[in-house]
């Protein structure tokens, strides 16, 4: 994620200046990166054997929730929220698993494309309902989370179906060096391919503008309604990727949404996306997902009951949000 500079930096000084301005603007993300390093160090100390295999396991485990976090980040940046991310993931997962079971590779590719299109449609329906009914986004997406979860259950009542072998293969194992898990590469490539061009486009700017100040956005010529629908559509798309990741990592379709919605909200808040909209990116939330996963791992290695991790995750979420609003209140007062 660059700051959107179009010109190619010419000399070293300019590169340093650009890096400086990026760093200034992404203090939160850099802090998270620091936190990530600390947690890796802690993990290594607690468990000296923690190596490439464990990292690959971690990368695969976080893949669905990382997509969920990206999905949530997009809509929250544009000033909305989507509580149906987990349900859309479940829907995408079961649809892909049911269709792919015992089918050839080529058909599998078609299924993946189809499921991504499904994600776009489902997200667009969410967005259109928010815009057309004028009902608060929280209510609409909460209600739609029932609808999509129910639809997922109708398609597949219990975990089942199957994943195309190639789909499972592209996320397992390392790429080149044993320290680089394929799952991480897949995540980086897919997010980068969609997000970076988007971030640089006028549409991307419109998403930020809408979240930052709807009135200023309107006065700057942003088409408010359509842009909002596009934001939800993108969230549907990334949720579908999350659902495919669920199928790929589990090998079967998962019809129960789990707590992905909740975790996605926790991750974006921790990842520096403002719930008020307009601020943050997708890199922060992804790092936050890894940090939260490492917290769990470290607690496990430290001999703490794994159940603590849920409580700690919630406490971190509450703590971060309270801290954030405290900072915001101080800023308003000054």
């Amino acid at each position, binding site marked *: 994620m660059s700051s959107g500079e179009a010109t190619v930096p010419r000399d070293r000084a300019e590169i340093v200046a650009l890096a400086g301005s990026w760093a200034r603007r992404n203090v939160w993300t850099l802090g998270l990166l620091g936190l990530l390093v600390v947690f890796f160090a802690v993990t290594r100390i607690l468990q000296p054997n923690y190596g490439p295999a464990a990292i690959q396991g971690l990368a695969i485990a976080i893949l669905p929730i990382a997509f969920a976090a990206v999905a949530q980040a997009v809509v929250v940046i544009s000033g909305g929220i989507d509580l149906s991310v987990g349900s859309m993931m479940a829907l995408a997962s079961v649809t892909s698993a049911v269709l792919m079971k015992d089918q050839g590779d080529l058909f599998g590719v078609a299924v993946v494309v189809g499921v991504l299109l499904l994600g776009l449609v489902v997200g667009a329906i969410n967005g259109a309902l928010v815009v057309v009914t004028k009902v608060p986004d929280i209510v609409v997406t909460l209600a739609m989370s029932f609808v999509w979860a129910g639809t997922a259950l109708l398609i597949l009542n219990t975990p089942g179906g199957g994943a195309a072998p190639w789909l499972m293969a592209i996320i397992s194992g390392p790429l080149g060096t044993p320290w680089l898990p394929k799952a991480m590469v897949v995540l980086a490539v897919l997010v980068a391919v969609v997000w970076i061009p988007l971030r640089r486009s*006028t549409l991307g700017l419109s998403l930020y503008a809408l979240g930052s100040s709807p009135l200023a956005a309107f006065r700057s010529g*942003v088409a408010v309604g359509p842009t909002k629908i596009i934001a939800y559509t993108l969230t549907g798309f990334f949720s579908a990727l999350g659902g495919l990741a669920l199928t790929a990592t589990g090998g079967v379709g998962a019809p129960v949404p789990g707590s992905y919605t909740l975790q996605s909200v926790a991750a974006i808040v921790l990842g520096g996306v403002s719930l008020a909209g307009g*601020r943050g990116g997708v890199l922060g939330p992804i790092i936050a997902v890894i940090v939260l996963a490492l917290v769990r791992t470290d607690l496990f290695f430290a001999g703490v009951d794994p159940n603590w991790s849920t409580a700690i995750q919630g406490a971190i979420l509450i703590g971060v949000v309270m801290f954030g609003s405290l900072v915001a209140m101080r800023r308003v007062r000054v």
Partner: protein
Amino acid sequence: MIDVGSDLLLSATDVAKHYGAVVALRSASLAVRPGEVHALMGANGAGKSTLVKILTGGVRPDHGEILVRGKPFAAHSPSEARRGGIVSVYQEPALIPDLDVRSNLRLTQSPVDATRHWLAELGIPDLDLTDIVRDLPLASLRIIDLARALAIEPDVLMLDEMTAALPANLTERVLEVIGRQKGTDRSVIFISHRLIEIAAVCDRATVLREGSTVGVVDVSAGSEDRIVGLMLGDIARGGPVEPADSSARAARAADAVPRLTTRNLTVGTKLSDVSFDLYPGEVLGVVALEGQGQDELFDVLSGSERPSGGDLLVDGAAVSFRHPADAIRAGLVYVPADRAEALLMQRSVRENIALPFTTPFGAWGPIDVREERRKVDKAIATLQIDTRAASEVRRLSGGNQQKVTIARWVAGGVRTMLCFDPTRGIDIGTKQQIYQLLRDLAAAGAAVLLYTSELKEIQLACDRAIVIFGGRIVAEIAVVDADEATLLRAAYDLRPEELMPDEVASAAVAVEATETSPAGPA
């Protein structure tokens, strides 16, 4: 207006806009020649802001014709207005707070180099385009907004109070750059309360009053008086509305301890060194043009905002309000202009009036329904509120809504009432009832501070008036002298020599007292 349509860059003819029964614009016309800087003038509520909204695509007119370079203009959004050739710089910058300047330019597809050029011309050449808008001072944002608008070379550039919030050096640059638009084939519509600036840069001025265009003035030395005269209309020539017997009231006030005292009250850069006394039994008027610090003054007095300096005394004792509840406990109750800020629109008249009864922690329990009904009914009777649509306050007329806001405080007994433009946008009958009520409250020993945007009200309701300009008290005027012309000149901070007392007096004698029209848009 000698010009025929084809010579004009922009012509708006007979534009009207109604909101329900409220007439915002009756018949406004505006003709802007190519290469001129044209001032749009009008007192509060004259319809200026509605006309601006129509020209920028925010509002659609009911009728009227708007042509830009001879072609019909109809816009539904600011971006359509821009495509039609009109670009506006609003009082609140239309910049996205969380994006950097460059991204903001990209979002509006504005040329970067041209914007940079204008930024340099306007006095901030070293602006870093990668700065986030949120981190920049307001003055810079207004300059950026202007530079961006200049960069796309619109046919008509509309500047709404462009120089407000700008330091003197930037103001100078802005006026200089605007002046340079003269003689090009583009024009500027300049809206400002500062007559000095109008005189400095504008070629002509169109004056609106009560929703209609009442005159177009060629700006030259000394034309300020003509402009002010047009804004005032008949009233300038009419004698003062007979002031109530203020001498008796003044005498009553003189030997009392002030109910409310401010000493060197300061709020950021908006309000400086404001000191005045408000006595029991008097109605003290506050006169100011829009945005001169009166909002901050009332926010401080009502406990909504804390002052950055100065003292506040109630009955001679220093107070400090952290919450409106503190001000209410000290007897200072607040009636805001915006009824949407005061009322629970979906709740009943009764609940709205009874609201302050239940706010203290001790009153959270069961409500004494009979006692509440007694107090509420009495307040409803005192204010003559029409309760036929009482189940939801939002279904009441504006006047009745405002009465509910006042009744809320009257029901509990008033010691000090702070009224911020309480008659804005309500019908003449209700206005008169409110003046009478304020007089009655004062007669019963209450102190009332009344800010009003309708200057006529000062003589109808007040005992004396203070005038605020640029955050400072610039004049205190006794009610006998507080005719509209005097107040308006003081509000524009025109130099004292232009406030010739004998001139005003002779005008009052010379012209027979005409019936003043029951004014403004209701």
